[in-house]
């Protein structure tokens, strides 16, 4: 597994850079235009959450190969406030910022695998994968 890139999300420009990096990587790997949109949208949601809810964090993009197929793993890591109740934030429409509350549940549906780990006071790590069909 090789890290392809990581983008610091400290300002909203980081959101744009992260999704551009995701667009290029997924295009280069041969993902369909719909999957490219799913991947860039997922990156944008995760990056925006880092921007909105934490001081800073990093979006990582990796290419993986499980022996049968290639995929992209997106990681979103921050040392922010963390999330108290993981079940709440996965409910459609749940938002503490007046947002649509569609980000995390949406990312889970757009991608093939989704994992979230968070410790209040320590931060959050989200790992999500899309496989090339």
């Amino acid at each position: 597994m090789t890290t392809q890139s990581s983008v610091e999300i400290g300002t909203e420009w980081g959101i744009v850079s992260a999704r551009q990096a995701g667009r290029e990587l997924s295009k280069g790997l041969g993902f369909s235009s719909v999957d490219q949109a799913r991947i860039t949208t997922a990156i944008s949601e995760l990056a925006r959450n880092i921007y909105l809810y934490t001081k800073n964090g990093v979006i990582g993009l990796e290419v993986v190969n499980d022996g049968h197929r290639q995929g992209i793993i997106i990681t979103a890591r921050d040392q922010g406030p963390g999330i108290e109740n993981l079940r709440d934030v996965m409910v459609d429409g749940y938002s503490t910022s007046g947002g649509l509350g569609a980000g995390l549940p949406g990312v889970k549906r757009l991608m093939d695998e989704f994992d979230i780990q968070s410790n209040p006071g320590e931060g959050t790590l989200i790992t999500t994968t899309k496989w090339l069909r």
Partner: protein
Amino acid sequence: MRIPILKLGNYLLISIQVELDDQTALLFQEDLLNKIHQEGSQGIVIDLTSVDMIDSYIAKVIGDVVEMSNLMGAKVVLTGIQPAVAITLVEMGVSLNGVQTALDLEQGLEKLQQELEG
């Protein structure tokens, strides 16, 4: 970055050709509402043909600008939403409820004309 707003009779035409970062989206919201006020525009077409990704934040900004324009008495039609964008929006559960759409600019203008001129 400012998104240009073109005036065509009673209508305003906007074609979004730039990467929609948050600043640009919010500035556009303000610019459009001011322009509607200045020009007394009744119909607006926002063309999204070149937009290859709409996340939930941008969707909210677009939904809000449509609602705000409606409040001011102007009708908005969104045109040219790409297949990949339509698919991701629905999968995300972001349904842009009550927002009028059309395939392209031309059909968007026709739709406005039908609604406004009967």
